[in-house]
C-alpha cells in the first residue's frame, strides 16, 4: 500500500520533471535559434536584409545637442538612419513624414532598452547647424534625432553604408544649391551592425511591420 502511494508520487514527480525539461528544452532551442539565425533572412519583406550583419568601422559625428554620435552610439538599440539635408523640398520631408507615421505603429516601451531610434543625418553640414537640425527633425517627431559633422567623418559613415550624395553647383542669384542623395532608410542592429536597407517608395505600415519581423527574427 505504502509502496503504491510512493510510486504514485514518484510518477507525478517524474511527469513534472519530464514536462519541465521538455519546456526548457524548447525554450533553449528557441533561444539558440534566435542567436544562430545570422546567415539566413526572413521571408516576405520589402527590405534588403543582409544575411550576415556588417559591423561598422569608426566614425565621429555629433547629434543636434552637440553630443558625440559615433559607431558606439549605435550600440545597444536598433537604429534607423536617413541621409538628407534641410534645404530639401521633397524627398527628405516625404521620408520623414513616412517615418513619423511608421513610428506610431512601432511599440516604444520605455523599459525596452533596444527599442529603435531614428537619426536624420545631414550631409550638408555647412548649412545645417545643430539648432536648425533639432527644430527640423522634432517637427516630425520629438524623439527623432538630427546628426551631422565634418564632411570626412560623414563620408566614413556613408561609405560603409552604401549611401551616396553629391552637391550641385551654387545658383549665382540665390546662392542656393541642391544636394543629390540616396533615399533609403538604413537599419542598424543593437550590435551596431548594418542589418537592412529599405529603399523607396516607402510605406509606413510596411516599414513598421518589416522592422518588427526583422527584430523578432534576429533578436536584440
Amino acid at each position, binding site marked *: 500500500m505504502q509502496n503504491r502511494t510512493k510510486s504514485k508520487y514518484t510518477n507525478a514527480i517524474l511527469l513534472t520533471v519530464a514536462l519541465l525539461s521538455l519546456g526548457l528544452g524548447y525554450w533553449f532551442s528557441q533561444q539558440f535559434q534566435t542567436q544562430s539565425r545570422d546567415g539566413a533572412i526572413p521571408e516576405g519583406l520589402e527590405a534588403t536584409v543582409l544575411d550576415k550583419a556588417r559591423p561598422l568601422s569608426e566614425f565621429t559625428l555629433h547629434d543636434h545637442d552637440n553630443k558625440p554620435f559615433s559607431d558606439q552610439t549605435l550600440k545597444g538599440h536598433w537604429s534607423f538612419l536617413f541621409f538628407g539635408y534641410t534645404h*530639401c*523640398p521633397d524627398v527628405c520631408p516625404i521620408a520623414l513624414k513616412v517615418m513619423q507615421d511608421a513610428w506610431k505603429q512601432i511599440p516604444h516601451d520605455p523599459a525596452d532598452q533596444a527599442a529603435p531610434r531614428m537619426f536624420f543625418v545631414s550631409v550638408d553640414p555647412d548649412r545645417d547647424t545643430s539648432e536648425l537640425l533639432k527644430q527640423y527633425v522634432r517637427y516630425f517627431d520629438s524623439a527623432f534625432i538630427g546628426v551631422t559633422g565634418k564632411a570626412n567623418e560623414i563620408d566614413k559613415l556613408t561609405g560603409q553604408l552604401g549611401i551616396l550624395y553629391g552637391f550641385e553647383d551654387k545658383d549665382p542669384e540665390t546662392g542656393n544649391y541642391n544636394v543629390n542623395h*540616396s533615399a533609403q532608410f538604413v537599419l542598424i542592429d543593437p550590435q551596431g551592425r548594418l542589418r537592412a536597407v529599405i529603399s523607396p517608395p516607402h510605406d509606413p505600415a510596411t516599414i513598421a511591420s518589416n522592422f518588427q519581423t526583422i527584430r523578432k527574427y534576429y533578436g536584440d
Partner: protein
Amino acid sequence: MLISRRYLQPLVALCFLLFVPVLQADEILDIDDAWVAEAPPVAPVMGGYMKIENETNKPISITRASCPEFDAVEIHEMSMSGGMMKMREIEKLDIPAGGKVELKPGGYHLMLIKPKKPFKKGDTLTVTLHTADGQSQAVKMEVKERKASDDHQHHHH
C-alpha cells in the same frame, strides 16, 4: 426679373464682351489641387504641387514662377539617377495642347525658397506662373499637411 426681352440680348452680349477677355487673360491654364506642403517652421524651403491642364489647342510652356513671400520659386524635376534622388531645376515645363502635367511629391514640384514668414497648414499663398509667350496666371495655393501616401509612386499590394 423685370428686364424686358429687348434688353436681354444686348445684356448677354455685353457680359460676354466683358468677361471673355478677362478669362482669356487670367485663365490660360486649368489648375486644380494646388497646395504647398507644410514644412518645419525652420525649414528653408517648401515644396508646392498642382495639377495643370491645358485646354487650348496650342502647347504652353511655363518658364518661371514667382511669389513675393519667398526669395525665389523654382520649377524642379526629380529623378532617380545612379542610386541617388536627383533634383534638377528645369528651364521650362511644357504642357501639351489638350494635355496635363501633374506636379506631385516625388516628381515635378515647385521649390519655394526662403519663406519671408513661416507658413502653417490652412494658410494660403499666391504663386504666379509665367509662360513663354509672356502671359501669366495667379494660382492660389493652400498650405496642407503632407500625408505619407502622397508619394504616388508607391505600388499598392
